[in-house]
């Protein structure tokens, strides 16, 4: 029973099931995967990162996170499938093999564990984390408005009852601070991909400003290639571009922080919803979504491998 081969990748799972899967996954693939606890959530749950590595200290690396908005269940499910895909394809897929022979991949599958647990126990549509502060009635901070890049600007909210509440200060939330500390101390992350859902988009910085980033052309070309690779799997069309021009102005977000901290290949996905389900994408669509996302991720990872900086 304690095997990832009996795990249903076509089903949604609770936090406990995912953490149990992680432990089994690491045990089964200990030659290539390890688990790192990078911190703890507001409610003291472990924040866990999977490290895919074939050896070597502080190699160039790629960061992937899913589930920062807890109700976006398709992202966690896609992250799990992707992790399995990485170990399955290593040694078979030339691109992935070359990548892992030279670089590491870090994956944080449950970026907001308190919020995710809450979506299973109390409110399926919860988006934020679960932090509380004395004298403030509403709970939770939008973890994707809490980063120190454009913090407090347009497209974030200072009302604690808002779904886009930014929190009292940059990186005030332990879930964000843990990632910042980890990535900063690692010092060699070359691509960061933050996966959200829904509405089928692939975007790059900036969110807080409509000014094009210095690498706008390269990022746009890469997004175009990745969206095309994704489209060729199941015919799902993604739009792509900078966050502020494609979707909306959003301040204090993950990928802006990453870009401003030297991670050139910073992207964020909005996975599919097919225009009908929003955050309630049926489980039957997990694998098709993950399959197509994989091709886009692979495109970005391959470019990162071949374009060192």
């Amino acid at each position, binding site marked *: 029973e304690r095997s990832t081969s009996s795990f249903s990748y076509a089903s949604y799972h609770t936090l406990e099931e995912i953490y149990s899967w992680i432990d089994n996954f690491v045990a089964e693939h200990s030659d290539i995967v390890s688990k790192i606890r990078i911190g703890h959530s507001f409610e003291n749950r472990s924040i866990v990162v999977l490290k895919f590595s074939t050896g070597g200290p502080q190699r160039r690396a790629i960061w992937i996170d899913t589930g920062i908005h807890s109700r976006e269940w398709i992202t966690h499910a896609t992250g799990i499938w992707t992790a399995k895909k990485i170990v399955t394809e290593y040694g078979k897929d030339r691109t992935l093999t070359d990548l892992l022979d030279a670089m590491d991949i870090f994956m944080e599958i449950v970026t907001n564990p308190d919020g995710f647990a809450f979506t299973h126990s109390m409110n399926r549509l919860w988006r934020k984390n679960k932090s509380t502060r004395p004298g403030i009635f509403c709970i939770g901070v939008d973890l994707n408005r809490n980063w120190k890049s454009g913090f407090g600007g347009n497209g974030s909210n200072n009302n604690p009852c808002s779904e886009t509440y930014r929190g009292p200060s940059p990186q005030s939330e332990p879930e964000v601070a843990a990632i910042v500390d980890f990535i900063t101390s690692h010092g060699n992350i070359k691509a960061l991909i933050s996966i959200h859902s829904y509405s089928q988009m692939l975007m790059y910085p900036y969110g807080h400003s409509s000014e094009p980033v210095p690498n706008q052309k390269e990022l746009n070309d890469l997004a175009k290639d990745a969206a095309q690779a994704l489209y060729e799997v199941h015919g799902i069309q993604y739009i792509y571009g900078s966050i502020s021009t494609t979707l909306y102005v959003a301040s204090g977000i993950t990928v802006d922080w990453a870009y401003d901290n030297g991670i050139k290949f910073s992207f964020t996905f909005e996975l599919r919803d097919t225009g009908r389900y929003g955050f*309630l994408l*049926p489980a039957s669509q997990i694998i098709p979504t993950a399959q197509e996302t994989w091709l886009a991720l692979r495109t970005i990872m391959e470019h990162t491998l071949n374009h060192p900086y």
Partner: protein
Amino acid sequence: QMNFTGDQVLRVLAKNEEQLSLLRDLEGLKPQKVDFWRGPARPSLPVDMRVPFSELKDVKAYLGSHGLAYSVMIKDIQVLLDEEREAMAKSRRL
């Protein structure tokens, strides 16, 4: 667990910036009542919002009175949630 029976997700297609502004006003008027799944961003993008059953009449009246065209994207959220829970339970049994 919170029950979403009768709650709907409305998809609004704003024609211009003025109509988007009306939707943003709605967010301000009912910050804890209307949950924007896709916020008012630009006229080319739809706006999706979850509206509790208790607010449906008021919100639909607001949209109608301002000439904002909408469709019902999800008719009853709880139906989808029940299906989701059943699918998870079935998967566990298997």
